């Protein structure tokens, strides 16, 4: 049982790099398409895109074991793709169609897949942290060797229930990896204006170790995630990863993002996580043409998802009344 994290650098194979590239590009192209469908009026309400943050979920998910569970906030499309959920079912939920994961009754912020161990998709800031701590409780109760990866934003980290759960998770040594996706803003309020101190250090008082990770570098995220998951899975209790990242788009589709400068955005884009892996792949001898082919395949998948999401009919009107309660046996 390792109670201290080892410091072994993650050395990616070519295959690892190819997987990172594929997974991150799928998220980016999916989100671009979602943005486009939103622009066409096919997606309603809120739609929170993940563009720029791809390395976070990719680095962490690829370090997980199949029995691990995942839960996140409303910025959830990427987490579902990373959990291997079907892009068609996700996109069709965005358009509010019967083919969506929730048959159109959940929307962009509310999708679930028990098969893929993905537990939503939650719209109330802070709630997914408590629910994720409960998922971890169930892993411990059933002694199934699973860890819950519970994502939150930098803004959510301020919620009282987050501190409540740090306390209980540490007290009961629950197998939960808290991931703070620090994209520097909670809506329009920058971290400097909303958070005192350093977010991962908020676990210290409870005896929860944590660290900050460069979230624009999937290799660094993967390395940190492997070690953190190992620590948690070994029965040491929770761990906090504060992953420093950036969202290129507004908070949701209707946010013109006037609270930050163009220069700031451009500077972040220079540090793009997908471009970085692309360079590494080319060093490994992968040709520009091969990479183009990957992009083409992904575009095809996303295109099919978008078509499905438009062709799938709206839910039957009778669906209004279903799924309110489970029929008691």
């Amino acid at each position: 049982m390792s109670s201290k994290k080892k410091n072994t650098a993650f050395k990616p194979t070519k295959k690892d790099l190819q997987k990172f590239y594929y997974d991150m590009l799928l998220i980016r192209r999916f989100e671009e398409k979602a943005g486009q469908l939103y622009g066409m009026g096919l997606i309603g309400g809120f739609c929170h895109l993940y563009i720029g943050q791809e390395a976070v979920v990719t680095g962490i998910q690829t370090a997980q074991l199949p029995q691990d569970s995942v839960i996140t906030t409303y910025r959830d499309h990427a987490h579902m793709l990373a959990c291997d959920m079907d892009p068609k079912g996700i996109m069709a939920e965005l358009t509010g169609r019967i083919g969506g994961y929730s048959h159109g009754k959940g929307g962009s912020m509310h999708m679930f897949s028990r098969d893929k161990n993905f537990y939503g998709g939650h719209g109330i800031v802070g709630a997914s942290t408590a629910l994720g701590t409960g998922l971890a409780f169930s892993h411990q109760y059933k002694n199934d060797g699973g860890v819950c990866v519970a994502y939150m934003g930098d803004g959510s980290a301020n919620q009282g229930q987050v501190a409540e759960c740090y306390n209980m998770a540490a007290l009961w040594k629950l197998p939960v990896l808290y991931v703070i996706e620090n994209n520097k803003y909670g809506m329009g309020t920058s971290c400097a204006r909303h958070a005192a101190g350093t977010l991962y250090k908020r676990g210290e008082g409870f005896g929860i170790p944590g660290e900050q990770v460069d979230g624009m570098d999937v290799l660094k995220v993967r390395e940190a995630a492997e070690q953190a998951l190992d620590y948690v899975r070994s029965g040491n209790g929770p761990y906090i990863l504060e992953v420093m990242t950036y969202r290129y788009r507004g908070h949701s589709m209707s946010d013109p993002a006037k609270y930050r400068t163009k220069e700031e955005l451009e500077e972040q884009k220079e540090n793009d996580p997908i471009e970085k892996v692309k360079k590494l792949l080319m060093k490994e001898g992968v040709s520009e043409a091969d990479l183009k082919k990957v992009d083409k395949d992904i575009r095809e998948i996303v295109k099919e998802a978008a078509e499905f999401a438009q062709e799938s009919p709206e839910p039957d009107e009778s669906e209004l009344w279903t799924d309110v309660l489970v029929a008691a046996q």
Partner: protein
Amino acid sequence: MPIDILMPALSPTMEEGKLAKWIKKEGDSVSAGDVIAEIETDKATMEVEAVDEGIIGKIVIAEGTENVKVNECIAILLEEGESKDAINDNDVPAPKAKKSKASKEDAAAAVSQSDASQPEGEEIKDRDILYAQGHVLPPEPFDEASFMADTVNQTVREALRDGMAEEMRRNGNVFLMGEEVAEYQGAYKVSQGLLEEFGPKRIIDTPITEHGFAGIGAGAAFRGLNPIVEFMTMNFAMQAIDHIINSAAKTLYMAGGQLGCPIVFRGPNGAAARVGAQHSQCYASWYGHIPGLKVVSPWNAADAKGLMKAAIRDPNPVLILENEIMYGQSFDVPTSEDFVLPIGRAKIEREGKDVTLVAYSIMVGKSLQAAEELAEMGIDAEVINLRTIRPIDRWTIIESVKKTNRIVSVEESWPFAGIGSEIAALVNEHAFDYLDAPVARVCAKDVPLPYAANLEKLAIPQVHDIIEAAKKVCYK
């Protein structure tokens, strides 16, 4: 094939906007994510990003154009190697959202179907759906008398505990968490002895963090555990109400039936004695308001045990609104472990023909006392013990009103949007022609609960208030 670039919407309500500026010009090559133009509405300015890569073949809408409709083609993108000739000027229709007739099976191919869905076109048989649609259905049949043949005298407190213990023996996924439930044996001693039998893995003392542990309970239920979350009193559950409503009650619906939350939230509700305004509130109408929740409120010890067992077995989130003053009172309770009361079924505690008194929790006892006194005045009152707040037993209430033609609702909540308001609406909708007098409500006075003994008594409904209301609707 040339690709149309369309005027995007900034929000679902935007219909048109100004094409403020072109960042790219004809002949420029773009890749996905590049900003190509800026658009403006009265609310915001936003950048339009390219979704595909290619070369801007033609700018269709010039910059500075106002009132450009959403989804109008603003430019045409050529794929690599494609010539401008590929653009057919007559061929720039704005694609509409396609509504195809793909079957439900095809569409949902990748997605597992919901467990509880209503087959299209068939007659609705699902009771929950019929209930939601406002129908008055006869409650599930239940032979309570047969269970009453073999009983033991118990306090409400013991009955609640035994109900939990029996279900915990039956199902290893049931566990109890809350403040002081384990080592202290329960703040009100409801969980007395459970730690000894089930150990600390299943009887769990929590810190004083209602919001957090309600969320942990709901999350554990998502993965198939059956938590019983005890609130020291329901007053403190206001800190946790977000998880009760947003996480526990709504998830099944939001998940299209894929993922439910089989959890019990319970604790003493309503006024105790002389504990002041913050510790004395009835939450029946708060939780009764929420689709996706079931809410029960036992009066006596048999109710307590039978409803506790039903709540734990139910695959949905269930609230049990108990009452501290009732904890120490004793009643006969069936000994059979199969005594599980159906949720949604009220009980006629006293039959009568002149007026219906409908109550829940501690007010059932007060209504029965009132009925005794009314009998001496020659008024024969029927007393209904609701047992379930949601789904309320519309049938039993309506059938009783059809017989007595008069109804008084009795509750410890405030009048505004209370359970009595709901009953008044129900009778109005389904038994209006049977009424010989307006529906009367006996509620708490519309003030925070005072501490002074005399004022507290005035604020909470008393037996004589019920008698007065019953006499009034009987015009006596």
